[in-house]
């Protein structure tokens, strides 16, 4: 939160906007993917970071957004924009519906319940006719170079990050952090915890819903094992934990780092197994050595200096 924050943010935004002009399609595509993951990781942090409820089914909202958008376009003949809107709304509504029973659970029980919910959604998508079942679904795409998607994802990821940032000093943000720290005390101090948790959950689900809708439009083919795979959630979670849970910058940092490593390893070996091993290592390191992620490490490295300065 130093004085450098605003200029740094402005520079970051400017670079992001100018990047497509300078990059060739290959690099633009990699950057586009990074933006997708940034949006997902930051959205996970809205519920996980503010309230401490770790959602291990967040990927389901991504898949539901992708499917609802695709179905709206293919079966109802709606334009992409309308489909996207429906995808985001469907994710939010589903989150409110799922949240009502599961947000009463705490800790590992909430994580398990959301994980089971995501698996259920995947099974349903495999069974239904409207989703194409195990055959997956073709989506009419926009055969544009990556520029369109780059802009779309930058917009959604940016909105998500700004939402997260604005919440930090908002009334809702204070109440949600109070819930994370001591839910019972918050409740006895007049905070309507259930309603707030539901709102935060629905908000955090909206972004992956929209991102999923764009993803289907981008890849032109979606399948339960791609957009509803458990690995979608796993990556978001690891990105946030690596960067720093409950921090504004952490998920962005985590998304950039992990996605960059993922693409690098893929280019070197054309196999995804190395990346999975890498993710495993990251989990071990974070759990053992970096409980507050890279942002926490940064703060820890800086603190001795600051304290010495403060004492003088």
């Amino acid at each position: 939160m130093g004085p450098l924050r605003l200029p740094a943010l402005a520079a970051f935004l400017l670079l992001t906007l100018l990047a497509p002009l300078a990059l060739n399609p290959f690099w633009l595509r990699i950057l586009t993917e990074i933006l997708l993951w940034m949006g997902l990781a930051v959205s996970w942090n809205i519920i996980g970071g503010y309230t401490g409820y770790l959602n291990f089914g967040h990927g389901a909202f991504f898949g539901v957004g992708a499917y609802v958008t695709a179905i709206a376009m293919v079966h109802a003949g709606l334009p992409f924009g309308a489909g996207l809107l429906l995808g985001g709304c469907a994710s939010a509504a589903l989150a409110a519906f799922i949240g009502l029973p599961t947000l009463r659970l705490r800790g590992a029980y909430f994580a398990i319940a959301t994980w089971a919910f995501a698996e259920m959604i995947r099974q349903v998508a495999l069974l239904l006719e409207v989703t194409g079942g195990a055959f997956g679904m073709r989506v009419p795409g926009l055969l544009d170079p990556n520029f369109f998607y780059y802009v779309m994802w930058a917009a959604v990821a940016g909105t998500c990050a700004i939402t997260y940032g604005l919440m930090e000093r908002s009334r809702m943000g204070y109440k949600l952090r109070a819930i994370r720290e001591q839910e019972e005390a918050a409740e006895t101090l007049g905070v309507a915890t259930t309603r707030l948790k539901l709102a935060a959950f629905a908000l955090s689900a909206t972004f992956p819903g929209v991102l999923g809708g764009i993803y289907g439009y981008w890849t032109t083919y979606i399948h339960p094992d791609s957009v509803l795979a458990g690995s979608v959630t796993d990556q978001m979670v690891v990105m946030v934990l690596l960067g720093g849970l409950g921090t504004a910058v952490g998920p962005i940092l985590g998304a950039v780092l992990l996605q960059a490593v993922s693409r690098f390893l893929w280019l070197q070996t054309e196999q995804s197994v190395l990346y999975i091993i890498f993710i495993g290592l990251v989990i071990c390191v974070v759990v053992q050595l970096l409980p507050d992620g890279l942002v926490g490490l940064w703060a820890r490295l800086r603190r001795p200096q600051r304290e010495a300065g403060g004492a003088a």
Partner: protein
Amino acid sequence: MLLEARDLVKRFGGLTAVSGMDLAVAPGTIVGLIGPNGSGKTTLFNLVSGLYRLDGGTVLFKGQDVTGLSPHRIARLGLGRTFQIPALFRKMTVEENLWVPAIDEPWQAVRRRAAEWLDLFRLTPLRAEPAEVLSGGQQKLLELARALMRDPDLLLLDECTAGVQPAMVAELLEAIRRLRDRGKAFVIIEHNMEVIQDLCEQIVVMHEGRAIARGDLAAVKQDAAVVEAYLGR
């Protein structure tokens, strides 16, 4: 009566923690709640503040039936409480802890009121520190200040002097008395009998989930049932 709890019952599995407990509190009074370990004092607080669901009985607050209401609704009617082990928002700063309960009010007013309480409890120098760095006694004070931010009419205090510096205890008691004189009511669970003696007009002794004696300290000390509750059979 500000609070009227009638015939409260709470069971945990086969254990009846509170069985047929009555408690009435008038505005502007301080009631002391004492009793041996496991007699149900904290459970009673959890029932009245709505954290536990009642297995029997009714709670009237300001004449309104609040039985079964969620804790935040009861809090908004003007009931505040503290916890035996301070339930602070540990990673939030001291002043943020105070802002949370009043956060829907205008910012300026919230900040001003928080600053006043911080001043009274000598926490102002620590206002930007995370609450977890406070000493045990300071945590108790901060929790009380936080409960006062909503300006409640009734406060349930669970061992509010535990760990507080003796000099600060005197000021804390003075603050409670001043609030009482302004019409606020308190129920305090307290192990320090000097505090009970200093503050309370009425003492209720709990044992095995019900009230076994009521009166002033000298009277309940003589009571045969109280002696047996404390010294065993």
